[in-house]
């Protein structure tokens, strides 16, 4: 007998899986829309300056071109909190790739041709896109992303570091990284009878509606936003992007439905990216390995459009007990595109640096890197002093070590060769905070014995439909097939966006509560249900977002084995293992997919992904998937993801923590540490491409 699919943690299959693999799931550009136009933006060809003239005559002469929107005549927008959305509002060019016009045409080809025929004259200004630690424009911001204080200090870390018996003082660099979801950012907008309907590829249609209401000064009641299927986002669709605004503007102008499907090459400039981070890590330790001082100082860039500060020093406030510490961010505004969220902002680059430095410290101390981490396990959250709601990092490390045969490792570097290959293994810890936001849900029992659960959750490929139905079926004690679920539309009860690994916790809570109420109602009555059934609602406002007396985080451990080819400098992962403690796992299949997906992205961060800021032209050189190297199948070995059971009563009714991002946290450090173990050389700049490896090997 198979396990009932409603059992908590059961590996229920994705509800929309068949639609997706048969190509019948409809994405934002694919909803039938009679008379629909296509639009193609014109990106700025200078890195800084002003548009002095736009000549649209040649474009307008082309067959199929309907209109061209420019800063001179585009609809005016009201102010919003997000300056990256103020497109076509003035002549300023804040970075290369900023949109300066939009061509609207009867076909995609005509729009693209029209865009090539728009002549733009610029008054270019000197630009600066090069991030350095000592850049004179650098400053300490008030906050880093997530609302974290930019600087935290405990004790006298400088003095404690200076007097530490063992010291590591190292610098790391993480390059710009790009989300590049499979489905590029796309919106179809349609005005009809004073109402606006939008199909968009978004992690949160509610946010899109709120921002559109602000920008176009509309009542939210007059806007409907659908995001039924979303081809990934990795943070870049957490907030609306210019495609949404441009599509609505063009639909307003033409009176017809308009689709703006951003070309892949335009994404790096306009949908956010992970900002490059320069890290200085200073770790001081006593002979027993206990940290006496921890300093993590991060320098990153932002644009002149708005401030975004990658909170890369914040994981050091959570991870280890250190008598003294300093975690600080510095940001340099440059003439670059605006950075934003990319899977595990803060934790991904921050834990790469911290966990690489911990490995260097372990080597300095002659201590096993697992033991070093265990020795620094804190009793309470180091920064806040709060008790942890649950913390099983040590269990993850020990379980991972067991599964990985870590005990058989020869700790000496460069002791394992197979022909031209040098083999090594490495470990790194992972952490990601528990985040939850208020949401509403409704549940309805219908006379035919089925149930309908409605919530404006987003399913960006994670399986949220499926897991929410499982939560409902579990509470209602009915087979999973009897629960229908509707997500992905602002016509549904309002819910938070899919970000910060918060979705299942934030949405599952009101679903759980509405279903609990419904079950109670049903239990109290007998006889047939009324025609429209029985309905309940739940709203977690004030509770999901309430301050907790506990520090709440998921933890994990990553173990990697790599082979470094001494002839070519190619580094390939041979084994990758993740063990996580992330509350209760609600669906083993989709959870594993999240963990493994995060690990693959971490593998990419370690070995293949990264873009170059072109100092002369001001843009990211690698702008397509032929040059921005996400891992191919051949790069991905057998990856294993496991979890330890965690029973945490301080979270939500399901007892779950977020799992969407922790897989990318620390993975790159585990791989980098393995590369050091293989070669005896420390590589402190990602990604570990053959040029860097060969240079390091020959330089030793």
């Amino acid at each position: 007998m198979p396990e009932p699919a409603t059992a908590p943690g059961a590996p229920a299959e994705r509800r929309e899986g068949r639609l997706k693999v048969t190509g019948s799931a409809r994405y934002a550009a694919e909803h039938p829309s009679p008379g629909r136009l296509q639009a193609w933006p014109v990106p700025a060809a200078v890195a800084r300056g002003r548009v002095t003239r736009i000549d649209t005559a040649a474009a307008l002469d082309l067959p199929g071109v309907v209109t061209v929107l420019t800063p001179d005549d585009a609809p005016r927008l009201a102010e919003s909190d997000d300056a990256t959305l103020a497109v076509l509002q003035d002549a300023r060019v804040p970075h290369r790739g900023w949109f300066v016009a939009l061509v609207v045409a009867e076909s995609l080809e005509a729009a693209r041709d029209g865009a090539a025929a728009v002549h733009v004259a610029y008054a270019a200004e000197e630009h600066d896109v090069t991030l350095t630690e000592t850049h004179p424009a650098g400053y300490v911001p008030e906050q880093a992303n997530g609302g974290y204080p930019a600087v935290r200090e405990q004790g006298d870390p400088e003095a404690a570091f200076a007097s530490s018996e063992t010291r590591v003082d190292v610098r790391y660099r993480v390059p710009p990284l790009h989300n590049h979801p499979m489905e590029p950012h796309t919106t179809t907008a349609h005005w009809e009878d004073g109402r606006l309907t939008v199909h968009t590829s978004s992690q949160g249609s509610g946010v899109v509606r709120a921002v559109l209401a602000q920008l176009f000064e509309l009542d939210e009641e007059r806007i409907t936003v659908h995001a039924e299927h979303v081809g990934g986002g990795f943070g870049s669709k957490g907030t609306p992007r210019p495609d949404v605004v441009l599509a609505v503007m063009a639909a307003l102008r033409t009176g017809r439905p308009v689709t703006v499907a951003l070309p892949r090459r335009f994404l790096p400039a306009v949908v956010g990216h992970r900002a490059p981070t320069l890290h200085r890590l200073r770790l001081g330790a006593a002979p027993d390995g206990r940290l006496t001082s921890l300093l993590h100082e991060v320098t990153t860039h932002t644009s002149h459009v708005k401030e975004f500060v990658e909170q890369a020093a914040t994981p050091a406030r959570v991870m280890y007990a250190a008598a003294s510490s300093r975690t600080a961010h510095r940001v340099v505004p440059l003439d670059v595109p605006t950075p934003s969220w990319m899977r595990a902002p803060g934790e991904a680059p921050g834990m790469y640096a911290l966990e690489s430095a911990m490995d260097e410290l372990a080597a300095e101390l002659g201590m096993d890197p697992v033991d070093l981490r265990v020795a620094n396990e804190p009793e309470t959250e180091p920064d806040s002093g709060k008790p942890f709601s649950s913390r099983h990092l040590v269990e993850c490390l020990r379980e991972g070590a067991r599964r990985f045969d870590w005990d058989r490792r020869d700790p000496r570097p460069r002791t394992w060769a197979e022909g031209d290959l040098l083999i090594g293994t490495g470990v790194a810890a992972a952490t990601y905070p528990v985040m939850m936001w208020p949401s509403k849900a409704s549940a309805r029992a219908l006379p035919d014995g089925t149930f309908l659960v409605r919530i404006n959750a987003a399913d960006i490929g994670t399986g949220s439909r499926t897991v929410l139905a499982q939560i409902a079926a579990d509470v209602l004690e009915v087979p999973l097939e009897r629960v229908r679920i509707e997500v992905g539309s602002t016509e549904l009860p309002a819910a938070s966006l899919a970000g910060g690994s918060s979705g299942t916790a934030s949405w599952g809570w009101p679903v759980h509560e509405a279903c609990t109420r419904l079950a109670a109602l049903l239990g109290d009555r007998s006889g047939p249900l009324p025609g429209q059934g029985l309905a309940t609602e739940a709203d977690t406002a004030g509770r999901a977002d309430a301050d907790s007396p506990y520090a709440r985080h998921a933890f994990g451990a990553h173990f990697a084995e790599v082979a470094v080819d001494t002839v070519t400098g190619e580094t390939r992962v041979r084994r990758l293992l993740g063990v996580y403690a992330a509350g209760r796992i609600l669906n083993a299949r989709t959870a594993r997919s999240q963990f493994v997906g995060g690990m693959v992205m971490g593998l990419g961060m370690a070995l293949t992904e990264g873009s170059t800021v072109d100092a002369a032209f001001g843009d990211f050189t690698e702008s397509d998937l032929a040059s921005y190297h996400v891992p191919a199948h051949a790069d991905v070995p057998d990856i294993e993801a496991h979890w330890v059971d965690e029973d945490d009563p301080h979270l939500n009714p399901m007892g779950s923590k977020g799992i969407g991002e922790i897989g990318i946290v620390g993975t790159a450090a585990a791989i980098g540490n393995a590369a050091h173990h293989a070669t005896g050389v420390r590589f402190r700049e990602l990604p570990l491409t053959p040029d860097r490896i060969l240079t390091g090997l020959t330089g030793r």
Partner: protein
Amino acid sequence: MKPFAYVRPGSVEEATDAYASRPGARYLGGGTNLVDLMKLGVERPAALIDVSRLPLDAVEELPDGSVRVGATVRNSDLAAHPLVRDRYPALSQALLAGASGQLRNAATTGGNLLQRTRCPYFQDLSKPCNKREPGSGCGALEGVHRDHAVLGHSDHCVATHPSDMAVALAALDARVELHGPEGTRSVPAAGFHRLPGDHPERDTEIEPGELITAVVLPARPAGLPSAYRKARDRASYAFALASVAAVVEVTDGVVAYAGLAFGGVAHRPWRARRAEEALLGAAPTVAAFEHAVDLELTAARPLRDNAYKVPLARGLALDVLARLTASARA
């Protein structure tokens, strides 16, 4: 993409006639590169002459033992062909090292030779590129050029040729058959592509209107050792940072024949003539290989950020030469 005519000729002659009668025409093979470039606006042909279905899809052994590969043979079919696998393993390996399975199913032998550089400046109309727009300058020379040339480049162009297949063909002494308005001719694969010099807009020696009809591989005994090795940023679907194709024959303890070519380091497959000359008649020792390869690579002139390519190409060549002669040295 501007509107273009599409014609599908039934024969080679019809194809070349169609080209001659339509100014601004381009031959279309698998379209894996040309169509991308049309979308980017880099190529704006007035007409596409689809030669992908011409009856040039055979791999056949000729009476003299050479092997003729029709221009429309797909990369995946060529890589898997028993004649190629047996006699020209370097070619099969090079093909399989290129692109992805899907692309290899579409790409043709002729089209592979004529693919354009993947230099990012060439592909971006908003930046200067002498290859795309002669006289506009070279964005890569002082720009982002980790992937660019270390051999044979000029101040006008530092791009590399992206093909893996062409590197193997160069090492294997293949010839390229062309049919054009002036008739039929054949040129050595190693001389088919050009160095950029003052005219980087010209990738090859092909004359306007000429159509590649076949590639001819010289007669080789089965088992003649040849190999291709490529270094790249990821394990699949990435262009060569550097690559090496080699064929070596050792007779009576000395190198009787050597063909060596580098990929990913120059505007064309770099046939290593100086190294070959040094190897001929030498005993197949590591020292002899080092001497020969170093002699070749003295010509290297790395750019600011791609000096790693010289030791990379060196290491690849030494490795491949050593492996190909392992039994002779045993």
